[in-house]
């Protein structure tokens, strides 16, 4: 696709960063508020979609490194499985960090409360791992499906599609 007009490019440049920060908030507060790794990862992956639609593939694909997203995906999956294996002295997927003090180990008061960020044990770690995996996976899907559009280009032009 060719780049869209300068109004769309400016607005997408600004709001892509806000969406990325909001997605990171949803991932990190996954054990306190509605949301979690999957939803926050999908929101962060919108970053790549906005930039790709507004700037076009020629500009963006020249400096985006797919290896970074591939690394994010494999690291997220390995961290998830590794956290599951870390509690193996009791059981697989045992929550060995909850209520112990230390990292993510605060004790939550019963009933409605205002939320403690340093609580919930391995659940927070797994939220971050799954969020990393979803960020990498969805960004890779968007990038490679966009590259797949170029397979239909028979006219000799560099970019297909229309704008404005």
């Amino acid at each position, binding site marked *: 696709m060719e780049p869209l007009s300068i109004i769309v490019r400016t607005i997408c440049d600004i709001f892509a960063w806000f969406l990325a920060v909001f997605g990171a908030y949803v991932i990190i507060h996954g054990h306190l508020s509605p949301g979690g790794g999957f939803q926050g990862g999908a929101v962060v992956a919108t970053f790549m979609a906005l930039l790709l639609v507004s700037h076009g593939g020629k500009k963006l694909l020249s400096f985006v490194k797919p290896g970074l997203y591939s690394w994010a995906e494999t690291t997220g999956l390995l961290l998830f499985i590794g956290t599951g294996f870390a509690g193996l002295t009791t059981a697989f997927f045992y929550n060995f960090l909850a209520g112990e003090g230390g990292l993510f180990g605060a004790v939550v008061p019963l009933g409605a409360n205002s939320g403690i960020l340093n*609580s919930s044990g391995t*659940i927070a770690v797994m939220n971050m791992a799954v969020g990393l995996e979803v960020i990498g996976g969805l960004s890779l899907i968007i990038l490679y499906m966009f590259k797949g559009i170029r397979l239909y280009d028979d006219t000799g032009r560099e970019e297909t599609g229309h704008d404005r």
Partner: protein
Amino acid sequence: MKKSVLFLIALLVVVGTLWGALDGIHPFGEVDKAPMDDYYIENAQRERNVNNLVTSVVFDYRGFDTLGEAAVLFTAVCSVLAVFRKGGYD
């Protein structure tokens, strides 16, 4: 003509099946017995120190499901990358 007959047959089959299945379902909003979910609501805060019960079910009580689901997501991403790999399909 043939298409409309097929459409009517499919409509009757689906409506009949769903109508029969409605008898075995509790009315909307009146869950009578849910001991597992009541256990989660009562005890998840004390056992797992977490406020969001859905997250506790997804990542702790039923972590195996999420493990398989993450593997499915990884496999789907790998398949998309294999479909659009460089050099085409032939």
